[in-house]
């Protein structure tokens, strides 16, 4: 049972002897709508697939047969592409960055569209608030990071790039090597995933709290004024979420480019 169904099915209001049905973790667990051979398919998976179709569909229509003089759709696509190519790849990685634009753009638009689903009626759920999706993306970034590090510097140089800092006092070396290893190899991908997940999780939770509260407080009493306030807040939070969704997709992509830049640069 998710909070969504609780909210819709219960006529639970203030003064009806019913407590506030605060949304919890169960708001992020969906009943499978389809189960094939023991594998259950849930709404977030469907949303992820829909987002994949949207991203591919848009870029297919926009860039399938690109023209020198662009049409409207191609122009919009180019703006998106240039945003990644210039303000992220070029800015962070530099001249070599153009090689990684496809990877960065795929991440950005996939994450952004998944996040936007949070405020699209009927969808209204960010898939990234299920930890598996950020994990998948962070793992892709991590594999890319490690692969590029060893490809660029060879095995010895790669290891050195991961854990070594030049010019340290001898007694500090073991400690710093350990810390660097933990930071570069373990916490980076972990924080990358958690940052996106937690933001989407918290954003969705906030909207839920205020939405449920406005419904719960909607009674024939003075508390309806509070319900109205809560509703305004829910709407405000939704608008705010739109900003956060873009920002998180941007930050995720930006960090990815910073890691790539760290992997391919000389020394560090």
């Amino acid at each position: 049972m998710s909070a969504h169904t609780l909210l819709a099915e219960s006529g639970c209001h203030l003064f009806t002897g019913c407590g506030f049905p605060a949304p919890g973790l169960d708001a992020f667990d969906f009943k499978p709508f389809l189960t094939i051979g023991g594998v259950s398919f849930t709404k977030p998976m469907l949303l992820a697939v829909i987002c994949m179709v949207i991203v591919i569909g848009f870029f297919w229509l926009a860039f399938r047969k690109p023209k020198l003089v662009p049409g409207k759709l191609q122009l919009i696509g180019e703006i998106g592409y240039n945003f990644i190519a210039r303000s992220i790849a070029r800015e962070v990685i530099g001249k070599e960055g153009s090689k990684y634009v496809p990877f960065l753009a795929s991440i950005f638009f996939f994450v952004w569209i998944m996040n936007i689903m949070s405020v699209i009626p009927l969808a209204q759920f960010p898939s990234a608030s299920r930890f598996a999706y950020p994990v998948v993306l962070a793992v892709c970034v991590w594999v890319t990071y490690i692969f590029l590090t060893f490809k660029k510097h060879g095995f010895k140089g790669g290891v050195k790039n991961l854990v070594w800092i030049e010019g340290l006092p001898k007694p500090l070396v073991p400690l710093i090597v350990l810390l660097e290893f933990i930071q570069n190899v373990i916490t980076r991908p972990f924080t990358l995933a958690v940052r996106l997940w937690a933001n989407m999780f918290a954003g969705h939770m906030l909207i839920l709290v205020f939405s449920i509260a406005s419904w719960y407080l909607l009674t024939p009493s003075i508390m309806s004024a509070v319900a109205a306030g809560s509703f305004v807040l829910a709407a405000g939070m939704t608008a705010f979420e739109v900003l956060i969704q873009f920002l998180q997709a941007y930050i995720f992509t930006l960090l990815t480019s910073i890691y790539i830049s760290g992997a391919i640069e000389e020394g560090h």
Partner: protein
Amino acid sequence: MMTFLAAEGAQNPLIPDTTELVVGILCFLIVFGLLGKKLLPNIQKTLEERHDAIEGGLERAAEAQAEANQTLEQYKAQLAEARHEAARLRQEATEQGATIIQQMREEGQRQREEIVAAGHTQIEADRKAAAVALRQDVGKLATELAGKLVGESLEDHARQSRTIDRFLDQLENNAANAEATR
């Protein structure tokens, strides 16, 4: 922390669902596969082509401008050369004309002198011939006249010759005197 995670069990949001992991990685790889391998390189190429087209257009325009300038310079140079040539030809023609006139003048002069000289020669020859003929005729006439006057035939050739010579000398003297006085 670990006990908390364990107590939460299936509800722990930080334990990813396996099916979701699979769906997520598939979705992302499909997106990356299509965007990264086909669609974005497509647009990258187009953007470069557009850049080239714009830059190339400017370069071509600059080239055309330079070429036009060069052609203009060439025309100007050719025009100046043609003017120079025309002036030179005029100058030459004037000089040649003057030379020809000079030559014609000299030729005319020469021919005139030739004709005059030839005339003089002819006249001299005629005069001499006339003088010779006259001398003979005058001699004959004088002899006949003398013969008639003296009534005798001056058969003595020596005397005849002397008489004629004396007469002729007298004549020549007269002529010389006449010429001197003229």
